[in-house]
């Protein structure tokens, strides 16, 4: 492709806010006052990088508030690295509280992983901490604070690591960093989640909204559960951002027709799953969580908090809406992918709110439930459908036909739990029949009429070593919606800081996550890539650092624990982690201190 613009420079100038000239931006938004963080980000690269964390104000789309910004922008700067280089990153804390930076998805010595209390002490006010590690990988990642709730306030940014060899798959390269901004202080949000009931949910079923029959409404009410509990924090307080720009800001990604554009989609939000699509433009997924996968063409994909997907698009001439719709449909992030500077694409309307189903309660297959048949139709194409038919016919003995309406299943039968799960007020549900749902495209996307990415579509592009796991481990995701308590195995992190999940160095373990809650949780393991047990041949199981465990369902991964040290393992929904849904994973024996330090 003969294209004059240097790829790196395109990314740096990240798109002109085509609207910068036409919008009446206040002075601070043009970067004239240091006390206000600018939207978007610059770039830092090389072997020596300096980042400064400071208090700022930030505003977007009429919402203004407090921000924690790095190098004066929200998001913070793009950290551009090259596979094989070494990097020293000085992080200076100008806040009045401790801070930290976690390099999300990077393989590095554990003491530079940036989790206070787990990998290091944190960075005190006024101090500078130097991270120092070699770059052993390539791909799309991100960084963020792991201290308190700073990430919500703007303390995050993208990482792009160029591969050691040239990559001929694309002509243009853009970062699409999705996040949220709220004018509320994150501690206020944490409190409202504890004390208010569904405080941010403005899409509840009411007498006049929602088409669920009365019988089912009564059943949900009987269980004290809310079928519209899709997202804890919503567009009621969030403005959804693309590279720090709100939907009305007119962010543009410019292209020349015929170009292959690599979009590095990063979900750097605190609490939001996004449905990403460019109506009329198919996307070819080439990497998941930074790791290359065999190309898969889709029309839409759901990206959980902390996941990344790289897609290649070749849009025809014109302006195309790049839509990042919040999973609960309470708002969207928006940008224009356009071949004409200044032409904004018309965004599609928000789709109808999502309602949970029996499967999300962990009631197994959807047979007999409302919409059950529909669900199967939707799965009819591709691997998913096969899995279902296998389940319903081949594996019929294990799946007795269920009359869901009769509610035979106790929703809190604690005898189904392994003995190491603590049963207490923090556990409001036990999924009676949790199923693996690797073939599920995500809440609200199982009935759409176009191609949606599923985990079963992902296959590692490079072969993994073929090794059988020698041990299995089951971890339950537990919670109490009403009290807003979240934990692993019924125990909050504050209760188990001295009782980590243990792996021997180089041990290969099959880990099954069982979600005993009705929310989807993106579970992230630091310092490693695990292989999703998604139906692909073992050597092609896709490598990921974050996996969605669907409501009332299971997800399984194979982990080769080959990075010694203590690592954080947690739900990447920020307020779930804050409520205790976190653990330490320890991989031993540790390296000798001289090597490590």
């Amino acid at each position: 492709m003969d294209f004059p613009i240097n790829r790196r420079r395109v990314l740096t100038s990240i798109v002109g806010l085509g609207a910068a000239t036409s919008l009446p931006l206040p002075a601070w938004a043009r970067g004239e006052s240091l006390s206000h963080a600018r939207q978007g980000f610059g770039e830092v690269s090389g072997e020596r990088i300096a980042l400064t964390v400071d208090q700022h104000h930030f505003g977007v789309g009429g919402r203004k508030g407090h921000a924690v910004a790095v190098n004066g922008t929200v998001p913070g700067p793009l950290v551009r690295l090259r596979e094989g280089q070494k990097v020293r990153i000085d992080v200076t804390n100008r806040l009045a509280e401790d801070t930290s930076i976690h390099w999300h998805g990077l393989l590095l010595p554990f003491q530079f992983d940036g989790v206070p209390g787990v990998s290091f002490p944190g960075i005190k006010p006024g101090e500078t901490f130097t991270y120092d590690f070699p770059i052993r990988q390539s791909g799309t990642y991100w960084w963020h604070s792991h201290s308190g709730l700073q990430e919500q306030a703007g303390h995050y940014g993208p990482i792009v690591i160029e591969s050691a060899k040239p990559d001929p798959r694309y002509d243009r390269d853009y970062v699409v960093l999705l996040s949220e901004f709220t004018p509320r202080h994150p501690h206020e949000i944490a409190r409202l989640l504890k004390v208010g009931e569904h405080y941010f949910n403005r899409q509840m079923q009411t007498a006049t909204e929602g088409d669920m029959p009365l019988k089912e409404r009564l059943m949900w009410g009987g269980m004290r559960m809310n079928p519209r509990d899709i997202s804890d924090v919503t567009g009621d307080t969030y403005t959804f951002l693309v590279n720090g720009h709100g939907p009305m800001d007119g962010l543009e990604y410019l292209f020349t027709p015929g170009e292959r554009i690599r979009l590095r989609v990063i979900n750097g939000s605190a609490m939001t799953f996004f449905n990403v699509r460019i109506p009329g433009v198919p996307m070819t997924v080439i990497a998941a969580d930074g790791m290359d996968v065999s190309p898969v063409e889709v029309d839409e994909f759901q990206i959980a908090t902390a996941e990344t997907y790289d897609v290649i698009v070749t849009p025809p001439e014109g302006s195309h809406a790049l839509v990042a719709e919040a999973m609960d449909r309470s708002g969207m992030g928006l940008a224009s992918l356009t071949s004409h500077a200044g032409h904004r694409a018309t965004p599609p309307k928000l789709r109808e709110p999502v309602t949970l189903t029996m499967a999300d309660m962990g009631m197994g297959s959807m047979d007999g439930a409302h919409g059950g048949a529909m669900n199967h139709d939707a799965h009819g194409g591709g691997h998913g459908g096969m899995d279902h038919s296998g389940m319903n016919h081949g594996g019929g003995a294990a799946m007795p036909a269920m009359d869901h309406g009769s509610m035979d299943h106790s929703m809190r039968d604690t005898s189904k739990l392994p003995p190491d799960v603590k049963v207490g007020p923090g556990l409001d549900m036990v999924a009676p029949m949790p199923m693996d749902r690797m073939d599920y495209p995500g809440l609200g996307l199982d009935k759409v009429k176009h191609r949606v990415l599923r985990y079963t579509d992902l296959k590692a592009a490079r072969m993994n070593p073929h090794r059988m796991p020698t041990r299995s481990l089951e971890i339950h995701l537990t919670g109490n919606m009403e009290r807003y308590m979240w934990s692993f195995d019924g125990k909050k992190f504050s209760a188990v800081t001295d009782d980590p999940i243990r792996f021997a160095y180089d041990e290969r373990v099959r880990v099954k996550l069982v979600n005993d809650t009705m929310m989807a949780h993106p579970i992230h393991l630091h310092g490693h890539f695990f292989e999703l047990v998604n139906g692909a041949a073992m050597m092609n199981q896709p490598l990921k650092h974050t996996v969605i465990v669907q409501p009332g369902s299971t997800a399984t991964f194979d982990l080769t624990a080959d990075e010694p040290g203590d690592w954080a393992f947690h739900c990447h929904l920020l307020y779930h982690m804050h409520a205790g849904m976190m653990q330490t994973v320890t991989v031993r024996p540790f390296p000798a201190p001289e090597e490590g330090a």
Partner: protein
Amino acid sequence: MTVRLIPLAPLMLAAAPLAAQDHSAHGDHSAHQQQPEEEPQAEDHSQHQQAPKPFVLPDMTQPQAMDHSAHTVGDVPAGPPPAEAFEGPQHAADRIFGEETMAEARAENHATHGDMKTGMLMVERLEARLGEGEDGYIWDMQGWYGGDIDKFVLKSEGEGEFGGGIEDAEVQALWGHAIGPFFDLQAGVRLDLEPETRSHLVLGVQGLAPYMWHVDGALFLSDRGDVTARIEGEYDQKITQSLIVQPRIELELAAQDIPERGIGAGITKIEPGLRLCYEIAREFAPYIGVEYEAKLGDTADIAKAAGEDPDGLKFLLGLRAWF
């Protein structure tokens, strides 16, 4: 396991053309099919079966077919980690940054990863009650502060007449302790300020009952040895996202006659009501409503003997607010 897998293969093949018909979704896997290493799942089985390892994991390509009731995953044994996983110091970072420094950091982590303390003050009902007799008012509020399991709870309620004085007023100070996912046990003391000073011990439960009823029930033992009880239940039915109909019922009981308060043993009072609230903000909802208030049994007889009307209908004008 092979027995199960073999019949699956034709099913998969059969499913493929159907998929193409039904659905553009995922029907378009031509890209996959063109690449030899990406054969459909049937291919994966053979790969596993040819693997040099002596056993085959049954659920490798069919996670759906697993026995999900089991706590082990497939044939891989569960069990404790190997001994090496217990080697070394308690925490890896201690050796690099010092035990003391890391201990401090871990202590700080507790508050930010589970041990958050918070609280609120809720005015559930602050209302004018307009009826046939005198117009009156009531207040009913509670506040709490604490963590997930243990809380300090303060409650106050009372009533009076416009132009008259306060007729009833009480304050409760309680320790709340979570006894299950939905209910707290509450124990403490209650002090009546009106109609006369009297103290009680309180034992109650508060929480969310099935069908989303908020329930608050308590037993009271007074300093004169009288045992009484009170049960309240309320339910929020949303009409729209902001308009809420709230049925509410309150029941009072006494184990014995309490002549100085005009109370006879048995169910002493019932108050069913219906409120229509509008949430201007989540924290601020004015409402209108009606409530029927009736003294029952001996208590009603005592009221009648005193020349009072034992029951009546009240129109309500009030506010629900919290901070």
